[in-house]
């Protein structure tokens, strides 16, 4: 028995000795003043999904990929499109776009980028309907290679937002020869792109490490090493930030703002995001919400600004449209606006014949969005004040998504939509007659025509007007009641100069030391 104790005691001593001798890990010592180390550590809530850039639709995965792969063009939002791999581009006719590539661009394995790589990449995602990004690229009919550096992209129909499509998830250009010779499995383990950084190490659900690519065609990489850590628990991520373990932490819960702001050397940075919270309403059938008066009453009964102020510490902007500034076709007259008039809501209900009140069912995910459950509960309280009884149903995210794809929600459901396409079409297409079947069943021929025309309209000015008008009609008809546009909230070590982007990407070379 003594022997066992002696052994355990020795084990303890060894463990302590091991601890005090210090490990080779960067977190040790954990002081916030990490100085001007050329290593950048960013903490995400989850690991990247995959290196198959066509087979995910995850913004935080793309946020890492953009440092390893290049698009043909970059979308700077209101700044328009800027050159990336493509030196120049031109819209020849309604369905043909002509591109010229930069010369001398190298992949991480030394291969040179040619038009064949572009053809290989875009045609794969445009033709394989099992890929998760297929739906956003199936509009591309063919890529015609004209020379090593010149090619045309032919679309099936007029495609005014082809450039939007080419500057987002699924459009990083891949090395054809490498993938054809080695196979996808090898590529997924040893991804090769044209970006300023290449993969050094990926420990799944732990860390992904990037190192500079010496032969990058643009400005040389600024960081000696970039680490993306995955830390699912919010409070752990905040603690890592506070101790200097990471430089940037994403998705800071509003409840931690004060803790961060009151700590030296770290602060909160926010940025508008593409995410808009909304209620989706049934506009036909036996549902109470089929009555436009009831829909309007619901809208007027909810004090959206109060939700933003009380639950989100002000980190959101109320809106009456999903197409927010920075997107093609945005209607800024509806942005930053909210209607709140509980007295009028009561009148509307009375007009609709519900003097004694009405009951509706609201379904919402629980734990998917910041304060989702609290928000819906607050909405229910506000509705109760005007005589609408809300029956609440909270679902875990995957159950919620299943129910959503089965289109089996009742009167109302609560959800957030993003928009990586930076265009109104992506936000409004679900309200066309064809797409809204079983969900909102929204049917306004005027709106429908405006949206379907605009989607294929190559006259950008007229297109914008059509979309703006459609948004006004939607705001009146209320198949969706938009609540607010949420902000991306980042905790940042003050040694950095970091401005979060609308698209939530981490272009690490835009992040600099102070």
């Amino acid at each position, binding site marked *: 028995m003594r022997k066992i104790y002696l052994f355990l005691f020795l084990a303890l001593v060894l*463990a302590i000795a091991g601890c005090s001798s210090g490990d080779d890990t960067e*977190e040790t010592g954990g002081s916030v003043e990490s100085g001007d180390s050329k290593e950048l550590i960013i903490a995400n809530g989850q690991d990247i999904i995959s290196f*198959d850039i066509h087979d995910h639709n995850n913004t935080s995965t793309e946020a890492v990929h953009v440092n390893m792969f290049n698009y043909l063009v970059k979308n700077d939002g209101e700044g328009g499109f800027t050159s990336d791999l493509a030196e120049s581009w031109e819209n020849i006719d309604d369905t043909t776009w002509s591109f010229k590539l930069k010369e001398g661009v190298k992949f991480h394995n030394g291969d040179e980028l040619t038009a064949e790589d572009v053809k290989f990449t875009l045609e794969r995602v445009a033709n394989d309907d099992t890929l998760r990004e297929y739906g956003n690229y199936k509009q591309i009919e063919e890529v015609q290679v004209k020379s090593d550096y010149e090619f045309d992209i032919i679309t099936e129909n007029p495609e005014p937002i082809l450039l939007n499509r080419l500057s987002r998830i699924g459009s990083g250009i891949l090395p054809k020869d490498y993938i054809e010779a080695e196979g996808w499995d090898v590529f997924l383990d040893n991804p090769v792109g044209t970006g300023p950084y290449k993969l050094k190490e990926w420990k799944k659900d732990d860390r992904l490490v990037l190192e500079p690519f010496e032969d990058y065609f643009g400005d040389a990489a600024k960081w000696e090493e970039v680490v993306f850590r995955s830390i699912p628990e919010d409070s752990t991520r905040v603690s890592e930030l506070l101790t200097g373990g990471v430089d940037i932490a994403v998705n800071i819960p509003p409840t931690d703002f004060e803790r961060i702001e009151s700590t030296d050397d770290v602060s909160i940075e926010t940025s508008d995001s593409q995410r808009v919270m909304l209620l989706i309403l049934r506009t036909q059938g036996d549902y109470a919400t089929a009555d436009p008066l009831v829909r309007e009453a619901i809208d007027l009964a909810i004090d959206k600004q109060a939700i933003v102020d009380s639950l989100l510490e002000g980190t959101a902007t109320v809106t009456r449209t999903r197409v927010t500034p920075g997107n093609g076709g945005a209607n800024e007259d509806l942005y930053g606006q909210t209607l709140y008039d509980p007295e009028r809501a009561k009148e509307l209900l009375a007009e609709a014949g519900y003097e004694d009140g009405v009951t509706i069912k609201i379904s919402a995910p629980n734990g998917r969005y910041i304060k989702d459950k609290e928000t819906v509960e607050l909405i229910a309280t506000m509705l109760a004040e005007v005589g609408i009884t809300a029956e609440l149903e909270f679902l875990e995210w995957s159950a919620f998504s299943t129910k959503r794809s089965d289109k089996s929600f009742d009167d109302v459901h609560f959800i957030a939509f993003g928009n990586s396409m930076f265009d109104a079409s992506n936000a409004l297409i679900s309200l066309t007659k064809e797409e809204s079947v079983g969900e909102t069943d929204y049917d306004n021929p005027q709106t429908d025509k405006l949206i379907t025309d605009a989607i294929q309209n190559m006259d950008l000015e007229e297109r914008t007007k059509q979309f703006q008008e459609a948004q006004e009609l939607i705001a009146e008809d209320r198949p969706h009641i938009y609540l607010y546009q949420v902000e991306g909230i980042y905790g940042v070590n003050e040694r950095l100069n970091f401005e979060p982007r609308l698209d939530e990407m981490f272009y690490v070379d835009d992040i600099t030391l102070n």
Partner: protein
Amino acid sequence: MKYLLTNLLKTIPVLFLVTLIVFLLVRVTGDPVSLMLPENATFEEKESLREALGFNEPLYKQYFTYLGDLVQGNFGESLRYNTDAFSLVLERLPATIELAIASMVIAILISVPLGIWSAIRRNSFIDLFITGGSVLGKAMPNFWLGIMLILFFSVQMGIFPVSGRGGLLHLVLPAIALGTGIAAEMTRLIRSSMLEILGQDFVRTARSKGLKEAIVINTHAFRNALIPVVTIMALQTSTLIGGTLITETVFAWPGMGQLLIQAVNLRDMAVVQAATFLIAVFVIVSNLLADLVYRLLDPRIKYD
């Protein structure tokens, strides 16, 4: 040997049942396709992905396909990583085992001395303190304890790193968070088991022979008190695995627990199935081992 063989054979229906239950649970609770595609994917896109992944087949057919593959050692492909699910789980196993062993070591280091001490000083203030503490330790949820440990030892004191897997330093806090509940359980058990033994004739005989108290306690009493402790250690394996699920998430520890939780969230069916299968094997094997050790410690125990 025969005992071992028959018991190993008995595990087969258990494992079979585990695969069936997990298979059904994963499928009735959600649909991976709706999670895989963007919110605005069209119905046709969902259908074609469903078809490609074989989710359009009737459930029983899907199950038999899965069983057929399983017998050949194929657990299917992860939807998230597009690679073999079983090798994904195996990749993570070392991190989880490391954490589990460290937690067990901590649990033993805490519970053995405290359990014996409180038994010897029965009904004293010390005893009260230790039994009270063990109730508290058992009641504390390990995610809460984990967050508190981080706040105190990492954020306030700056002694240990907050999260991740690196050297021994990274192991300390998660192992304490996970080991505490087990230590509490074991302390109580060692105490009551020691008390029972201390009241028995052979201990009295040993004492009356004039043996030193330390020898009586260490050699005579503790050795015999150890038998139920071994059982509880094996039974704690399942607690330990359940605990790693939560603790790994709190400490961003890249083990099997975190993999499993993310797989459940994303309805990554093959990974959920592979991981739960492996966990079931673990629990079964540890119980078998407990029986064997039990027999070694006390030759009077016979199995038929």
